[in-house]
């Protein structure tokens, strides 16, 4: 009788695979290449999470130092990028918990659904009809960033990962250790929250 071998997971060979293998085989001078590859992405992700530039810098530095320490434990069971964002997100979450004690605000669907007839729209507003390039300008981009900052953190994490960083639902769920269903619920509420902020901005313009 043959003893079944334990199932071994297939290694994910993404664009970082060779570089990580080189670093883990002792070529530590290649680590700055990995930093260069992700520094800007992680800086901007952390900035959107922490808002404060100094906190974002701390989060990025802490992330890379942890990655340097624990890279040898990386098993290629996920894309390296996803693992990296997982470390960064958890660093940012720890920062919030240290700086705040207030419970997070929950967003409910009811607050975004038109409750009475006066709120029910009867035509598509201009801002949703104009070609994107006719609408976009620095002021609007600032407004969107501002609106993202006002989202409670757990919703902000999801919308930034999904709609700005471009991760899909399953990847976002893996990064944040949530179920797919939970990611979808948070994403929808976050988008509705931002839509209301944008609506307010365009109505007052």
């Amino acid at each position: 009788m043959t003893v079944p071998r334990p199932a071994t997971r297939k290694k994910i060979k993404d664009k970082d695979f060779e570089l990580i293998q080189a670093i883990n085989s002792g070529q530590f001078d290649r680590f700055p290449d990995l930093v260069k590859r992700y520094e800007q992405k992680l800086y901007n992700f952390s900035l959107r999470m922490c808002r404060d530039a100094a906190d974002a810098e701390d989060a990025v530095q802490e992330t890379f130092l942890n990655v340097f320490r624990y890279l040898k434990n990386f098993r290629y069971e996920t894309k390296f990028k996803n693992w990296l964002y997982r470390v960064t997100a958890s660093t940012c979450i720890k920062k919030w918990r240290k700086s705040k004690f207030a419970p997070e605000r929950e967003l409910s669907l009811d607050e975004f659904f038109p409750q009475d007839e006066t709120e029910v729209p009867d035509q598509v507003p201009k801002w949703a009809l104009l070609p994107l390039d006719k609408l976009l300008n620095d002021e609007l981009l600032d407004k969107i960033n501002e609106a993202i900052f006002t989202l409670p953190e757990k919703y902000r994490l999801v919308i930034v990962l999904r709609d700005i960083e471009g991760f899909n639902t399953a990847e976002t769920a893996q990064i944040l250790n949530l179920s797919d269903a939970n990611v979808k619920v948070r994403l929808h509420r976050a988008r509705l929250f931002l839509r209301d902020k944008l609506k307010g901005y365009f109505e007052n313009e």
Partner: protein
Amino acid sequence: MNKNEHDHKHCLELFQKLSEYLDNELDEVSCKDIEKHIKDCVPCFVCLQTLKRTVDLCKQTEDRPVPEDFSKKLKEAIQNMPKMPPAG
């Protein structure tokens, strides 16, 4: 359907699924249900269009460059890290 006939129950049911619809994460039956509904329901059509535009705008946000001082500081911090033995 005009705004006075806005059927809250059905609208609310579809309202919950609009993001999944935009992300192509809904089954065919639910997609057809939404498409049929928004043909007649102006408020829900407006809701879908404004939500879609919100997502499109979010995707347009740009990344800031990393401050040079920080880049330098990070490089130094990494250089000062004790080197681990290679993974086995």
